[in-house]
């Protein structure tokens, strides 16, 4: 079983390598191989989940030790204490499921790319390999290594295949993400000097006597390092520029999965390893999270470009994830995890829709569009449904997640006024979200038809499939979130017991 787990990142690497030898002209073969590859990964992840649910891998309550399913451990660069330690628990399985679904939809959406499409898919699969490697590795250095692998393909994909001022956006995005990695390096150097090893679970278990004072400054370094990837307030300026100029599939993957890598890292590497540091620094990060929630929502109101609106919406929703983590309660962490998964799907479907609409009206400015419901009904209905998913209507996945986060905000004793104020502000963000979502939906889909001379037809089959997949995921998670919540809760018990200590 461990080999199957490692296949999740070996398979995309193999596909990337085999794509290199396919001649450039054979676009059909390239696309066929990529879709087959992504479907293979999805099948792999689903079978892993089934095996996980079948076998009882729930970590016993009260133990700070995460029991890993299908774990595989070999010394790698062991001269500095690094081992290739992979395994998986509920939380990372959910993230892998989300990543594979979004990857599948990403490949389907980028069906229209013709020039240099070989490089496109090679880089996409390297990105996939890095992301899956991250989700399964439990050694801090291996985790950081896979995280860095994902950064270069993102740069090349945006710089070569993007639109608008793509080089500037790609460079800014990459440098800020590497700035984040700089902070992570500092945090890891701190943990290494204190404990001498990179094994997350070992550090988390006996960390009380070893980390001590190091945790006080290593935690903010690690949390902010991954926070930059999760676009926490002061360092969020890369994501609107990056998303706006990225090609559709990449902005889907970047906003849907890559930003969640930040959240995953925050939880796995920062909170799980250094609970005292977490307790110490959380008020600051709660304030930052609330700022990014309210700040992102307000700026989205002022934006005119569809992709910018969704980018700022993502900042606002990912801010909720950080807020969920900042409450440091079982409900809060679970809410953060659910919000990560739900927002992954929501932002992916919105970016896919923006791609389709842009493909037809050749403009992303909402003032130059209107009344698309008449000409492209299928896409418009999906746009309205996606809009309701962003607002957080019951029945969609974001309602389940946001309700859990808001409850975390108010649970426990109410004497912590900071948490109350931040909780109230986050709840008020659902109103601001409604304002900019409805403004966008109304000006794009409803109202009299604005015809700027482009002749376009409704969605082709190849465009409908990803939208349908993502919308069913959103509504399925909204209506039947039972098993997802149970998986998330199980995998978070060690983190919570660690916090309780």
């Amino acid at each position, binding site marked *: 079983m461990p080999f199957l787990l490692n296949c999740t990142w070996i398979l995309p690497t193999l596909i990337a390598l085999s794509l290199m030898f396919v001649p450039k002209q054979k676009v059909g073969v390239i696309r066929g191989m990529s879709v087959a590859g992504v479907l293979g990964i999805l099948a792999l992840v689903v079978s892993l989940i089934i095996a996980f649910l079948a076998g009882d891998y729930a970590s016993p309550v009260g133990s700070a030790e995460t029991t890993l399913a299908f774990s595989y451990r070999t010394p790698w660069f062991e*001269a500095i204490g690094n081992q290739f330690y992979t395994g998986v628990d509920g939380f990372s399985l959910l993230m892998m499921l989300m990543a594979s679904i979004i990857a599948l939809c990403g490949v389907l959406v980028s069906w229209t790319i013709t020039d240099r499409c070989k490089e496109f898919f090679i880089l996409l699969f390297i990105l996939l390999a890095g992301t899956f490697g991250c989700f399964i590795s439990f050694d801090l250095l291996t985790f950081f290594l896979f995280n860095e692998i994902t950064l270069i393909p993102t*740069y090349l994909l945006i710089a070569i295949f993007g639109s608008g001022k793509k080089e500037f956006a790609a460079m800014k995005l*990459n440098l800020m993400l*590497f700035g984040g*990695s*700089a902070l992570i390096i*500092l945090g890891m*150097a701190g943990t290494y*000097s204190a404990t001498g090893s990179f094994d997350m679970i070992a550090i988390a278990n006996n960390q009380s006597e070893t980390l001590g004072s190091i945790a006080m400054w290593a935690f903010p*370094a690690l949390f902010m390092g991954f926070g930059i990837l999760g676009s926490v307030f002061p360092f969020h300026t890369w994501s609107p520029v990056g998303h706006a100029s990225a090609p559709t599939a990449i902005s889907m993957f970047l906003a849907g999965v890559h930003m969640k890598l930040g959240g995953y890292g925050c939880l796995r590497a920062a909170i799980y390893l250094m609970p005292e540091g977490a307790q110490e620094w959380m008020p600051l990060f709660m304030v930052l999270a609330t700022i990014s929630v309210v700040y992102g929502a307000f700026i989205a109101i002022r934006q005119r470009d569809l992709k910018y609106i969704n980018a700022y919406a993502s900042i606002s929703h990912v801010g909720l994830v950080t807020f969920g983590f900042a409450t440091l309660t079982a409900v809060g962490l679970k809410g953060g995890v659910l919000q990560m998964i739900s927002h992954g799907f929501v932002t992916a479907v919105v970016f896919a829709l923006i791609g389709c609409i842009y493909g037809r009206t050749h403009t992303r400015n909402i003032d130059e569009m209107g009344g698309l419901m008449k000409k492209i009904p299928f896409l418009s209905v999906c746009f309205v449904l996606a809009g309701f998913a962003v607002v957080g209507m019951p029945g969609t996945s974001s309602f389940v997640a946001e309700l859990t986060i808001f409850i975390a905000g108010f649970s426990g004793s109410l004497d912590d006024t900071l948490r109350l104020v931040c909780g109230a502000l986050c709840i008020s963000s659902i109103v601001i979200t409604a304002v900019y979502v409805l403004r966008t939906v109304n000006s794009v889909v409803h109202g009299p038809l604005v015809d700027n001379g482009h002749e376009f037809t409704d969605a082709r089959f190849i465009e409908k499939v990803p939208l349908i997949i993502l919308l069913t995921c959103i509504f399925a998670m909204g209506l039947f979130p039972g098993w997802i919540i149970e998986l998330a809760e199980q995998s978070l018990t060690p983190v919570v017991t660690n916090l309780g200590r």
Partner: protein
Amino acid sequence: MTLPTALWTDIALGSLACIILLSESLLGPRLRKAIVFHGAWIGLVLIGILTVCTAPESEQAIGNYLIRPWTIPFRLCFCIAGALSVLLSRNLLSGTGHTHRRGLLVSGGVHIFLIICSTLGMFVVTGAQDLITFLVGIELATIPLYVQAAMLRDDFSSEASAKYLIIGSLSTAFTVFGISYLYGAGNSVHFDTLAQTLTADKHFAWVGVIFVLAGIGFKLSAAPFHMWAPDIYDGAPPPVTAYIASSSKAAGLAGLILLVYGPFQQLGADLENIFMFLAIISMTIGNLGALRQKRFNRFMAWSSVAQIGFVLMALTGGDLAIPSIAFYLLVYIIGNFIAFFVVNCLASNRPETFSNMRGLSKQSPLLALCLLISMFSLAGIPPLGGFFGKFELFLAAAQPGHEHFYLILFAAINAVVSLYYYMIVVKDIYITEPTHADNSTCPAIAILPSQRLTLVVLVIAIIVLGVWPAAHSWIFTLAGS
């Protein structure tokens, strides 16, 4: 008395030098080319293999000459750098179809002979047990470079060698002056006795240390002493630039480690502060210098100044410094040579500036891919060797007892800045479209078969170093003992 096995490499190197000199002067043109060129790089590769095979477990002393286990990786680096430099000078020698833009070397054989002499000098440095041998080794390593820098017949080369000469001899003066003070303070020249007598309270010791560090600072082109690097890298012939950039830096580092863990043992904390000062300045000035660079050779000069900054940072740490520097050097040398090989193929018919390199990915994808890999390895991007190399330097600075976390944060941010200018290179070759003026003038790029083969070997080596831990653990076991 039987010679310790480790000494064979030094002897082999000396004899190789003599063979090359003799064949250069005595043999006919055809045979001479075969012996001198192929003999040299094959010889150096064999000597490299020999050093690896005859790596001693413990220190083997022959009179005043001591083979230390941790110097073996450094010696390997010297041999590799020498061999690659010889290979790189292929199209500067007579008798090949593709003549280089700047003409031929004055005499190919002498150039190769000097490379081997310089490598021998570096071996002597690593084997030194007292200040005199150390000084002789350093001089034997640097003086041939002055001559090599002047090997081409154009003005740049002669001006470069003149400047290199003057600055080099000034640094020799500093080193010698420093050694005299060290002798004064420690009343002896031998490293072991010096280790006891050189204590922090002796002012002469500090004067000596400062001057010797200044001399070695020149050799490493560390920050305050780096001004010569861009001009000499630009002026000197390409194989010499590559050789200076990689091998002479390695020799300087080997010497520095020898001193820091030899005579300067007791100076402890104050020495760490000096290295912190040097590291911070080198990183900053190296990065800032490389930001706006338009010409490839000067860019490599500034980037090597920045890299030295990172390496010096590791020296402030405890025992992890030696192996991490050794591994980093191995990866750095390979990365450097890949870049120089690619640009050498390019530059044989147009000046090596970034604007000429635009659209390289469409012209010849192999060269573009190799340059991309070398740039990302120098920047420290994961799948390649550079990642672990650079990351271990950060870990070395965080050894228990010697934690310098502000330095690590500063270095990490500098790594991000360095990533920016390595990405500019990648952006030029992959993304920026060549302006009409550029691609109309340059004909197709001709790559010599031998250089194509070395490129492929080096690229595979750098990927394997990044993924396969064998070399990494070998270096660490050697350093550990």
